[in-house]
């Protein structure tokens, strides 16, 4: 898939990348970008770039989005040099601060301009971090979406919802957030770099997120031994990022990647897929990939990406489901469908929005029979405004 760069932006992103690469052999090229000299000096990655020295004076931005932005804008040339030769960019950032929120969209745009495919991994601040940071994150995410091919979002709040992490000390919570991002990055890397039995590539991901303005949710499950497939599915359902499977149950489009040891059987794949199909709506678009990695031994890992419709509203979170069973667990798909009756009004609106975005069958056939127009890795037959994730006013009104 060409040269891959893993880039941490802002202190949060830098820390996440630091953690990620420790003990990761044969990983992608790693780089970090920040305004704060101190943060960069402790990083162990291949390349560190300080931006906005003239704006921030070598210190952080103090959480000021404007300062972060001008730091990035001042040093676009250097960012372009950093991006040179990269075909795929994994951008890791924590939104809400100054540098992460300000520089990330600029970096993504620069990378895009250089012809790289940009996959952004962004965490959104916890509720308790206050409205200012959430607003900064919201603005930044909107821009980031414009310049990234795929944005994988991890709202930190979702971590708190998982029963295990509820009583974690604060530091451990942040570490958990980093670790989750790490898993996301690694499985994305595996998904793209490991030649699979059933191959998945960037185009599959792009196709999946096409309907969702480029935003994805992510789930991960693993199993070991005899019943590894069942275990992995169960584990996946507990994944906090998929809101205990509820995201799956309403996903219109999802991508499943299965990585197993040398002894991965078709039966295992079948089992995993059966488990997932039970939960997802019958009409959803489902893509499967499978790969063997001898290092996995007798384990099996399942990674799920689901396209999610993020609504750019003040609450920043995707609109919450109205009600949730007390256990927070999904038991039966039937139970979930039952829930849908009591969906909140907001959710109803969201559903309408999704319908609005789904393409008409007649228009899809416009270019049927003709060669697809591919330029710089983009399918030009897909409307520009959809590829760039530009919201139309008509859609916003219909919310």
């Amino acid at each position: 898939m060409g040269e891959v760069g893993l880039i941490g932006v802002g202190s949060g992103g830098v820390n996440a990348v630091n953690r990620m690469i420790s003990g990761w052999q044969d990983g992608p090229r790693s780089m970090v970008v920040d305004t704060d000299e101190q943060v960069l000096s402790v990083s162990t990655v291949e390349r560190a770039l300080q931006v906005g020295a003239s704006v921030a004076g070598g210190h952080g931005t103090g959480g000021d989005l404007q300062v972060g932005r001008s730091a990035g804008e001042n040093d676009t040339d250097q960012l372009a040099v950093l991006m040179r030769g990269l075909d795929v960019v994994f951008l890791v950032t924590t939104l809400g601060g100054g540098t992460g929120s300000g520089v990330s969209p600029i970096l993504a745009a620069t990378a895009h301009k250089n012809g790289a495919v940009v996959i952004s991994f962004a965490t959104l601040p916890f509720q308790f971090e206050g409205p200012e940071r959430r607003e900064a994150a919201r603005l930044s995410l909107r821009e980031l979406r414009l310049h990234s091919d795929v944005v994988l979002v991890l709202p930190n709040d979702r971590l708190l919802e998982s029963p295990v992490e509820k009583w974690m000390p604060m530091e451990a919570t942040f570490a958990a957030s980093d670790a989750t991002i790490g898993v996301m990055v690694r499985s994305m890397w595996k998904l793209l770099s490991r030649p699979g039995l059933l191959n998945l590539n960037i185009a599959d991901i792009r196709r999946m997120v096409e309907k969702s303005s480029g935003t994805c949710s992510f789930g991960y499950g693993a199993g070991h031994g005899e019943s590894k497939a069942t275990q992995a599915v169960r584990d996946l359902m507990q994944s906090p990022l998929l809101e205990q499977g509820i995201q799956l149950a309403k996903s219109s489009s999802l991508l499943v990647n299965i990585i197993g040891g040398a002894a991965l059987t078709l039966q295992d794949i079948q089992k995993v897929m059966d488990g997932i199909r039970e939960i997802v709506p019958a009409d959803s678009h489902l893509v499967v990939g499978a790969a063997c990695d001898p290092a996995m031994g007798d384990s099996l890992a399942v990674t799920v990406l689901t396209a999610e419709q993020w609504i750019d509203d003040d609450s920043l979170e995707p609109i919450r489901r109205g009600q949730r069973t007390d256990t927070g667990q999904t038991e039966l798909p039937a139970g979930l469908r039952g829930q849908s009756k009591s969906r909140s009004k907001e959710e109803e609106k969201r559903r309408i929005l999704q319908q609005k975005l789904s393409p008409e069958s007649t228009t899809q056939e416009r270019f049927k029979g003709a060669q697809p127009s591919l330029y710089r890795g983009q399918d030009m037959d897909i409307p520009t405004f959809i590829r760039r994730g530009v919201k139309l006013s008509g859609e916003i009104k219909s919310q």
Partner: protein
Amino acid sequence: MNIPPIAALEVGTSKVRVVVGEAREDGQIMITGFGEAPSRGIRKSDVIDFDNALSCVRRALQLADQNGPVKIHEVHLVLSGSGISCEKNRGTVPVEDDAGEIGNDDMERCMETARAVNLGHDRQVVHTICQRFYIDEHHVVTNPMGMEGSRLSADTLVVHGMRAQLRNTVKVVRSVPMVVEDVAFGGLCSALAVLTPEEKEKGVLLIDLGGGTTDCVVYAHHAIAWAGSLAVGGDHVTNDVARGLQVTIQQAEQLKETNGRAMADFSLRSKKVPVPSNVRTTDHIVPLIDLHTIIHLRMEETLQLVKESLLERELGYQLGAGVVLVGGGAKLKDICGLASKVFNAPCRIGKPSNVSGLVSLSESPEFAATLGMVRYGFSTAKKETMSQGWRQIVNTILRRRES
């Protein structure tokens, strides 16, 4: 010198057009026949449904037969899209004459070497254009005949496209049945119709914004420096509008024509326009700003792609005379403003010049390619009557392999 009327045929993605013209003494083209039919079975300038395409070509030719004084038996065919791109090449040969005088032979050998470009099996050469000659590597001349030197070099631009697609278009026309007298790249034809000698000298980019494809030609120092085609066109704009505003393709096409704009006008932010409809349904209105945004993003991206192709070949800074737009897309409001913003150069809409007869045609940028083909047909016919040697000197198409 009496050249019979020339019939130019363009099998476009949205329209099939036929123009019959005669050359007048004063260099004007007199239009004597004209036919136009909506296309079917063509996508992105490629034939995807043979029978449908054939019936549309027949219909257009029939109309031209009825309108004009002559019956058409052979046509000059305009080719667009089909992944047209180009390769630059230089060929060098020693001058054989003992006295070092360059003769016909030397030039022919030189062109032969310069023409030899290694292309894939699926490619077909459309034009071989001689850009300039060099004597002894650095002395640039346009016509080296009779000059002295020890080595003669020629720079050529080989324009080529996808073999299958080009052949299929020709095949449709031959099945009419109709003799295909000559073929030429649409971008080149448009250039012949609308560009002035000054523009060609200073450097100019011609963009033909067609229905299925966008064809481009760059002139610098009187020679064609680049030719290419993007498989993105007006159809994409229409499709984007249809998808974004939830209307049918026909409605999108009408919205684009009546209310379309290449730049979003924010003063009209709250304005809404009704969706044209044959059936009386409940009023379907769409925000004008959305229509403009969708069109703007697509057009800007298309032009940006052209610009990037130029920058890759380091031609971006040679556009002294700016950009000239032709094709149906050139009728879009504000397109000139957008193009001059993207290319940071002046921009004008190209209208075919020195045309009489049907004046309305010369006012329409979408007829540039077809009218240019008529002109091209006359220029090659004229050259055919000249000496062989002269024919090879002129900056134009020298040989076309059987297609």
